């Protein structure tokens, strides 16, 4: 009986992804109910970071491209959501539009990116991250300049009862967004599209000899990943109630890439690790830094230094990221049953 269930699941990617989303959704539902208001907000923060990291990890892991510009895509999504919210749009179409607008912005960037390699690609996307948020300053009447725009917080539907906490509602919204991203990316990666992307990543010449249009697949991966970042940005706007250029500094794009690498490049589970790290590590390093009584010049900057140190140590200890480390441990533990499984394709 159990074996048959397993066989059915193995056969259908779509079914598998549905089960994955439902299981994760139930876990998250249980969690949001048991967490305190602040932890719910952290969960919401983690969920919108996850959207961005998941997109980035597909881009880097499946397609072999790199982007230092995903903070800018988040800005596109966030400003779209903020402007539409001010225009009276409902939450769901507003977030959908955030993703769609980012998708459209992602196309020209993706086309350009598909023609660039290595450091040139990094440089071009870096320029995008630096330049785009400055547009908000250039058109202060539309985007509010450095002050940015404020968004009214989403109100929980009355059917949930009068005392339903806002923070839990925000966590739900962000987690649903993250589950949508999981559903889409899981199916893409485990389909012919994902195979084509990996073929392009592994050897561009071989892929094009097999009839694959290299540039087109790379553009597609880039646009897909930008769209996920746009949704993440829209969720950021809804959860934090604000968008401003100061929220999307170059550091953000670098931090996102660091999160993907530390979490485990190319793995959706790695993106979960990365998101948890992005949310928890700054708090933790501040606590650590404050526990020493140091002169203010040192203690104010120590959290940033500790953050960097943790990243370095993590990279030295687990070159393939946290997920790589976990996988290695799991593989050692499950070595006995390894023969039951077909060879794992390297991701």
């Amino acid at each position, binding site marked *: 009986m159990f074996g048959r269930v397993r066989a059915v699941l193995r056969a259908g990617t779509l079914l598998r992804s549905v089960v994955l989303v439902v299981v*994760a959704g139930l876990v998250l539902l249980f969690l949001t109910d048991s967490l305190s208001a602040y932890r719910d907000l952290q969960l919401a923060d983690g969920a919108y970071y996850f959207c961005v990291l998941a997109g980035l990890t597909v881009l880097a892991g499946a397609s072999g491209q790199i982007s230092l510009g995903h903070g800018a895509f988040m800005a596109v999504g966030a400003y779209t959501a903020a402007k539409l919210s001010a225009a009276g749009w409902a939450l769901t179409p507003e977030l959908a539009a955030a993703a769609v607008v980012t998708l459209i912005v992602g196309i020209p960037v993706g086309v350009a990116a598909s023609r660039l390699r290595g450091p040139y690609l990094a440089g071009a996307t870096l320029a995008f991250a630096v330049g785009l948020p400055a547009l908000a300053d250039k058109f202060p009447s539309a985007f509010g300049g450095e002050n940015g725009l404020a968004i009214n917080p989403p109100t929980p539907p009355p059917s949930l009862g009068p005392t339903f906490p806002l923070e839990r509602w925000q966590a739900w919204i962000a987690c649903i967004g993250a589950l949508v991203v999981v559903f889409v990316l899981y199916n893409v990666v485990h389909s012919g599209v994902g195979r084509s992307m990996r073929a392009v990543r592994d050897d561009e010449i071989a892929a094009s000899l097999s009839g694959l249009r290299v540039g087109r697949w790379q553009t597609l991966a880039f646009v897909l990943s930008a769209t996920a970042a746009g949704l993440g940005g829209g969720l950021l706007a809804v959860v934090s109630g604000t968008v401003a250029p100061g929220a999307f500094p170059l550091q953000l794009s670098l931090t996102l890439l660091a999160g993907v690498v530390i979490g485990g490049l190319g793995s959706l589970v790695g993106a979960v690790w990365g998101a948890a790290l992005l949310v928890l590590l700054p708090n933790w390093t501040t606590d650590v830094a404050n526990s020493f009584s140091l002169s203010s010049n040192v203690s104010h900057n120590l959290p940033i230094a500790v953050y960097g140190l943790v990243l370095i140590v993590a990279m030295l200890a687990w070159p393939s990221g946290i997920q790589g480390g976990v996988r290695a441990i799991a593989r050692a533990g499950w070595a006995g049953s390894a023969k039951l499984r077909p060879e794992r394709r390297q991701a």
Partner: protein
Amino acid sequence: MNFRGTKSLAYVGVMVAVVLAVAACGSSGSSSSSTGSSGGSSASSTSSSSGNGGGTAPGVTATSITFGTHQPLTGPAAPGYSEIAPASQAFFDYVNAHGGVFGRQIHLIIKDDSYNPTTTVNVVHQLVLQSNVFGIFEGLGTPTHTKVVAYLNAERVPDIFVASGCPCWDNGSSQPYTFGWQPNYTIEGKILGQYLKQHFAGKKIGVLYQDDDFGQGGLAGIKDEVSAGSIVSAQPYQPGVTTLAPEITAIKAAKADVLVDFTVPIYTAIGQLTSFTLGYKPQLVVSNVGIDPITVGGLLKTISKGKASGTALIEGAITDGYLPSTADTANPWIQLFKKIHDQYDKSAPFDGNVEYGMANAYTLVQALQAAGKDLTRQGLINAINQKGASWTGPGLVPFRYSTSDHGGFNGARIGMVKGGQIVLSGPPLTSTPAAGSPITPYSGTQPSPPASGIPAG
């Protein structure tokens, strides 16, 4: 992308659970478990106002009261401003060493937001929901603090004495829990504008301003006083930029005789270095928030890699002040603050930022004394609304506080940088932010501080 089959599915579920469990018991759970905070703070704030009248409120015990604040300890606004909250802390340390307020020790949790609004939102949520603070005190910055005002008022968390002169804190009717403290930037602009009208009549004026409510408010105040044609160039800049060459070049090209800066200290310094490089020497006028000579002097030296030492590039600049100058060592308030500084905050230079933090903390202690022993959030708000306008202290002018007007100091004195120090002159001037409202001299005198240095109730 490598998870096929059911085993990896279960694996994903476990992973998610583990990560979130880590999140749940993560970083600093010292206060989170004690109060059953999962019920949501809106519920707790209503129960606290209706419940036992013995002065129970979040963040208050019989022996302590905890405030939180968000400050730019790192990032572009950090130079100078990062000294403010530690100076407030030093004043609280002094009060605590002398028995606190009604036997309660005042604690201040300082969180770094790097002047990034998203981080501000995060740390303020953390302070309110997790650290369970009584209120937010001295939250710094216009682009940052504007993003948490709605939240704090919805949750009825006192948002006391914001460290920004934005007019946006002044509306007591729509934001009953938020209070400004320093003079509104428009009032400041008007006072500087009147001085220009009187002393630089017929001269061409150029304005360099930060492109947010700070700079725009100041520019509005200047425009309210000087004739429309006299402003020949007004150049906005965005905080975070690394050069002001285009802006200064444009103002120079417009042949402005007077340069008015509504800038934070680092951009005052960059602007002056740029003017110097271009050989442009207008009369400089700078808002109070951008001219502290020790801060700007230090920045000039750092940015020019030691080539510009001292404060020669801001010598003669006109500004305004609503607190006594830190150079005025005969002033008893300066003596008090210097004494506390030397004892509790030695690592920082004794400059205008330190004075700001201490004077603001002094006003908070006044408010806590006025709110009485049975401290509630609403009680503190009522105390400021009803008694705030009568408080005297280190300020040179009165506060505007009333139920409908939550603006702070209502004016300032004109000052000038002489010998690297700010020297104030003339009578204190007061006004309101309304366009066209008159500027009137204030005749009240500044009282000496109480002997203990701690305000009475």
